[in-house]
């Protein structure tokens, strides 16, 4: 039997993706793809869509299968060897709690979103890329749940991530980001997630966090992280190609895309503040500070990628300078916020020990000793005196990012930023000019935001008292509050044969 000539990469890609499409005979394209043009994006020729990796479906399954085999071997070894005892200390697990409740449901959201874009886009290249990414994202949600379920056997706060995600006050921050994108059209969704989130910002989620997991002895998380991240490099590449494709197709697309880039850069930056807080405060052994991460991955790399897009007329996202001005303040303000609302969170909070305060001074020489160290030291003394501080009131949230309105003017860091606007006779409040502008562009949509404190007062969250609401969130009495007095800490000390004093030292 004569062997067929081996196809080269390009031929193989065309045969195994582009040629899989079919022509329509009894329905029009507009009937089959009704969501493809209402956003105003004009596509002249879908065949110009390029997948730079030229990954075909058969190669996709082969690589993904291999990644899964490697990952699940590690998860098994982890469980069989009680490897949860190998992490630096029990505080570290709280970073995983945030990851599982705030990020894993986003993976699932992305799975849904790319299933939508795969159906909505008329071009076969975009359909195949969407399909791969939709399956990737489902895999990420599953592997994260499977990996972290090892820790759920031993630690509090990991038992109900999806229930919490749909209800809890601080988890409305990631939820609202994703639902804003999911409820938009397919082009806005893919710009929001593939470009703004994956390409511009996701390095800051996975690189420091997974390197942090490695540094803190968390073999299982390192493995799911890097397994997921190998897909992310494909997603990031897609993000860049999507933007270039849309911009090359029609000049009218530029202002629409620029506005989406501005919007989702800012919303993504606000969301990533929580990751920054993990980097600076929650990893017992730290890899890099939020400020260093922001400089490396946004100010340097992000700047270069926007330089690449300048030929199409794209500029740096509006308000990016604000993110740079805030970098010496952001994580300290957020940690102090979660510390003060620690009784209503599903993870523990604490005051860093002295060597950790010194690390923060070194990384934040302009602000830490001047503003934030005295606050942390005061709160530590209060806690020692039996007066652990918890804020008794529900927070005022920003209508757009849904983060409590804690951000300050970087030039005057004891002055909070208050912005407001009026829509149909009602007032709406914002943490920043950027969040206000996002609202004012789409008030019909953003005025529908489900703000958890307001929902509590409307009677939609299980009752009027904090215990009622925590029950509605499925928080148990062991999930939140001060780390020093937590069951996690007591168990850890028992497992490791430590006295509380040794652990504190």
């Amino acid at each position, binding site marked *: 039997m004569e062997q067929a000539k081996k196809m080269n990469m390009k031929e193989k890609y065309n045969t195994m993706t582009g040629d899989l499409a079919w022509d329509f005979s009894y329905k029009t394209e507009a009937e089959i793809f*009704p*969501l493809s043009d*209402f*956003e*105003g994006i004009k596509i002249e020729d879908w065949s110009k869509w390029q997948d730079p990796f030229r990954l075909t479906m058969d190669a996709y399954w082969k690589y993904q299968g291999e990644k899964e085999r490697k990952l699940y071997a590690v998860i098994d070894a982890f469980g069989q060897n009680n490897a949860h005892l190998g992490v630096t200390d029990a505080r570290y697990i709280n970073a995983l709690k945030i990851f599982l409740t705030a990020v894993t449901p986003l993976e699932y959201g992305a799975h849904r979103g790319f299933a939508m874009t795969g159906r909505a886009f008329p071009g076969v290249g975009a359909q195949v890329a969407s399909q791969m990414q939709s399956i990737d994202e489902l895999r990420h949600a599953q592997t994260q749940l499977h990996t972290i379920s090892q820790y759920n056997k031993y630690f509090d706060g990991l038992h109900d991530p999806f229930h919490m995600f749909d209800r809890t006050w601080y988890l409305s921050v990631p939820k609202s980001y994703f639902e804003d994108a999911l409820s938009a*059209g397919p082009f806005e969704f893919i710009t929001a997630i593939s470009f703004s989130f994956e390409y511009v910002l996701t390095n800051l989620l996975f690189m420091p966090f997974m390197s942090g997991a490695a540094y803190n002895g968390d073999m299982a998380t390192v493995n799911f992280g890097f397994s997921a991240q190998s897909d992310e490099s494909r997603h990031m590449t897609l993000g860049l190609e999507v933007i270039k494709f849309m911009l090359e197709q029609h000049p009218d697309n530029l202002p629409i895309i620029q506005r989406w880039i501005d919007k989702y850069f800012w919303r993504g930056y606000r969301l990533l503040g929580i990751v920054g807080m993990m980097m600076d405060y929650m990893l017992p052994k730290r890899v890099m500070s939020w400020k260093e991460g922001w400089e490396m991955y946004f100010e340097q790399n992000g700047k270069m990628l926007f330089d690449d897009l300048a030929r199409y007329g794209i500029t740096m996202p509006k308000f990016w300078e604000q993110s740079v001005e805030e970098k010496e303040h952001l994580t300290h*303000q957020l940690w*102090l*916020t979660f510390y*003060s609302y620690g009784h209503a969170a599903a993870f523990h909070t604490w005051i860093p020990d002295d060597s950790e305060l010194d690390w923060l001074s070194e990384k934040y020489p302009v602000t830490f000793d001047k*503003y934030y160290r*005295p*606050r942390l030291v*005061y709160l530590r003394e209060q806690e020692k005196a039996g007066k652990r*501080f918890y*804020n*008794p*009131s*529900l*927070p*005022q*949230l920003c209508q757009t990012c849904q983060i*409590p*309105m*804690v951000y*300050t003017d970087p030039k005057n*860091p*004891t*002055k*909070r930023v*208050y912005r*407001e606007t009026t829509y*149909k006779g*009602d*007032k*709406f*409040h914002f943490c920043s000019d950027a969040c206000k502008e996002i609202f*004012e*562009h*789409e*008030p*019909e*949509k953003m*005025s*529908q*935001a*489900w*703000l958890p*404190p*307001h929902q509590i*007062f*409307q*009677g939609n969250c299980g009752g009027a008292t904090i215990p009622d609401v925590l029950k509605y969130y499925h928080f148990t009495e062991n999930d939140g509050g001060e780390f020093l007095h937590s069951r996690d800490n007591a168990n850890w000390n028992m497992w490791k044969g430590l006295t509380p004093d040794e652990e504190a030292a």
Partner: protein
Amino acid sequence: MAVKAAYENYSGPNRDAVENFHGNQLVYIGWDEHMMFPCAGVFPLPPQMPFGAVIKEVVPAAFSLHPDFANIDWGKVEWLLDGKSFNPTLDKSLEDNGVHHKSLIRMITPGLNGINNSGF
């Protein structure tokens, strides 16, 4: 500007319309230069509640954990209502003082600027 939607005349409910709060209105109250309370609090209050009652009942529940609180001279407190300086009449209601649904009240306590005057 308006949202671009897949159909004409897109709109949705104003999730936080005053009618949804069982006769109350939302009022935000923040204390400037006291970042121990990282943000303003939100409170559902009857529009008929006298401003004096807000000071006696709501404000202490929110802020009395701060050591500055006991030293406040209430005659010297400066108030901002929705960004403008404001002289509340204590025996008049929130409504009659111009405090509307989702109004923001900011409290400024001259001479009391947080722990060791640090704004915290």
